[in-house]
């Protein structure tokens, strides 16, 4: 039985400080600490299990231990239920848990605005001339790739279908799910000039990140990067739920691309839960196929399947699309958004087959390609010209005056999916239809009573001998419908806790 697809995006932003004597790590700390802090709420690292592997073993690593002062310096937990923090050497924005696909898109965009506001505050306070630039992409062009990760709530049973114990091969994953994740880049890729990481050469490719994947399965995200991440950290009740941590996607500027990426993936995962994927599309060489698709933006490449067939990435997507269309059609409870996703998915595949440039307002890699081609034609320059790499970067610059995507948006050249109003709403409000509502309301009403938080818990200090930890085991609960009235009735955190206790 499929369950609601609560989802979220973790975006790692790249920071540069051109011509400024401010190192990047310090810049990251300053940015994260420059957006309005709700209260002195730290991140609860004790609640995390980053080393459990979905295949039933524990990988090596050290758990994070930080002092409270450092914890508060690294983490800024926001009123909207999001986590804004320093991850290694860059700022990262994790959206709150969203239920609607478009809300996730809008929240991700709110993240762009939050980091912009924060960076502006840093620049205003430091010496004149201090310059901080923020990029939402996935490569620094110096061999480092960083992620734009998606998270989806799935049932424990479906998760184990995808990840059997390490003693058995992940047959279901290879046959029914991995080909989707590898081929979806034809409409989710953010595009990139050239190749890197020593994987061959190409003028322009579909994906930002394809050059960096080395293996099929693994718990890591930064070394020996796997197509499918096996980190078994549900951030919810382990008896019922799992979180699929998807690291194979690109950072999307286009709302439409992001909508299609999240929407198609959410539907496919519901189909895994309902065991509704029946077409075996196992690829002979998944890691190579992932790279090869990206390096063939003409979409004509034929991929070898394990059973000997040869299919293009478009043909593979067509098989998924048709299964999803029939699944949604036969499902009385499908949401309006799901129906919209399926309709758009079909249209996009048709346009990719007929004339990809027809998607120059919708799909990131096509928008970027169109932009670069126009510029190339005007200047009469070749693909190797360094100005094109610069433009590639500028497409992802989070700056409404200079960022190329933002300029296209202002000129009405790209298709919007969410309203300005909804994006701005999420600057200070959490979604009302997930447990993020409970977290956000607690932050709003009782900020000084909360000492630590994680996705699935809030820890209160009510002055007693012990701290009180409130578990949030179900991401679909704690919504306005369930706890809105309780918040209206209680005046203190203590009253709240007594109302929600079993």
């Amino acid at each position: 039985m499929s369950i609601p697809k609560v989802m979220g995006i973790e975006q790692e932003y790249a920071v540069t400080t051109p011509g400024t004597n401010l190192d990047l790590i310090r810049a990251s700390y300053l940015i994260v600490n420059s957006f309005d802090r709700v209260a002195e709420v730290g991140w609860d690292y004790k609640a995390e299990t980053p080393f459990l592997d979905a295949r039933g073993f524990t990988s090596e690593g050290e758990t994070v231990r930080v002092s409270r002062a450092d914890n508060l310096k690294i983490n800024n937990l926001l009123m909207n239920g999001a986590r804004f923090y320093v991850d290694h050497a860059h700022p990262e924005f994790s959206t709150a848990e969203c239920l609607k696909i478009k809300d996730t898109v809008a929240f991700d965009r709110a993240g762009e605005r939050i980091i912009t506001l924060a960076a502006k505050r840093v620049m205003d306070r430091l010496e004149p001339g201090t310059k901080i630039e923020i990029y939402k992409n996935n490569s620094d062009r110096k061999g480092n790739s960083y992620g734009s990760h998606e998270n989806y709530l799935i049932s424990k049973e479906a998760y184990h279908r995808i990840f059997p114990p390490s003693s058995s091969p992940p047959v279901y994953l290879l046959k029914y799910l991995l080909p989707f994740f590898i081929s979806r880049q034809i409409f989710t890729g953010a595009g990139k000039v050239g190749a890197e990481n020593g994987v061959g050469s190409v003028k322009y490719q579909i994906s930002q990140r394809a050059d960096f994947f080395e293996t099929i399965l693994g718990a890591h995200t930064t070394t020996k990067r796997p197509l499918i991440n096996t980190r078994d950290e549900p951030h919810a009740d382990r008896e019922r739920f799992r979180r699929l941590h998807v690291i194979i996607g690109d950072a999307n500027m286009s709302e439409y691309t992001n909508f299609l990426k999240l929407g198609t993936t959410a539907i496919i995962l519901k189909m895994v839960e309902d065991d509704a994927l029946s077409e075996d599309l196992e690829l002979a060489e998944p890691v190579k196929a992932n790279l090869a698709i990206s390096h063939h933006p003409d979409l004509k490449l034929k991929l070898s399947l394990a059973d000997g067939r040869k299919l293009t990435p478009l043909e593979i997507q067509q098989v998924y699309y048709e299964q999803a269309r029939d699944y949604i059609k036969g499902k009385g409870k499908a949401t309006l958004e799901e129906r919209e996703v399926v309709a758009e998915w079909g249209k996009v595949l048709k346009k990719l087959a007929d004339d990809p440039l027809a998607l120059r307002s919708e799909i990131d890699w096509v928008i970027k390609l169109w932009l670069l081609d126009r510029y190339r034609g005007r200047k009469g320059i070749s693909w190797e010209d360094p100005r094109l790499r610069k433009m590639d970067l500028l497409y992802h610059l989070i700056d409404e005056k200079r960022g190329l995507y933002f300029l296209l948006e202002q000129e009405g050249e790209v298709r919007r999916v969410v309203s300005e109003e909804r994006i701005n709403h999420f600057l200070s409000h959490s979604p009302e239809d997930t447990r993020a509502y409970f977290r956000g309301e607690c932050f709003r009403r009782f900020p000084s009573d909360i000492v630590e938080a994680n996705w699935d818990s809030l820890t209160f200090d009510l002055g007693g001998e012990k701290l009180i930890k409130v578990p949030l085991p179900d991401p679909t609960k704690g919504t306005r419908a369930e706890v809105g009235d309780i918040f209206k009735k209680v005046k203190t955190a203590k009253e709240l806790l007594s109302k929600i206790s079993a």
Partner: protein
Amino acid sequence: MKKENQFLRVTYQNKEQEILYFKDFSSGAMIEAIVSRAKTYALKRLIQTGKKGIRKEDILQAIRDEYKENEDLPNTTNPDDWTKIAGRKGERIIAVESLLPDRLRKEQKEVEEIRVDSRYL
């Protein structure tokens, strides 16, 4: 040798006890880390209030936070490791007790997890 700078009480095999101070654990790396912390705190204040410069309170806070972070390194379950760091000769250490004041240890208050009503959460 003020009380507020006490870091650990160690008990040797012969039952003798000794108090170790922050200074007993200082090193070049630690001093560098403290300076870096102090700079960050000063920058943070600059961002929040517009006031420039590193202050005494930044240094003091940096020292406390640095020691707080290092409190359980090496692990107290193996007291012998402490001898290597502290450089005391010969005598075996059988117990180590942290003397950090409560204000540095707030997050170590015991945590009680409550059961929540599944109608709501």
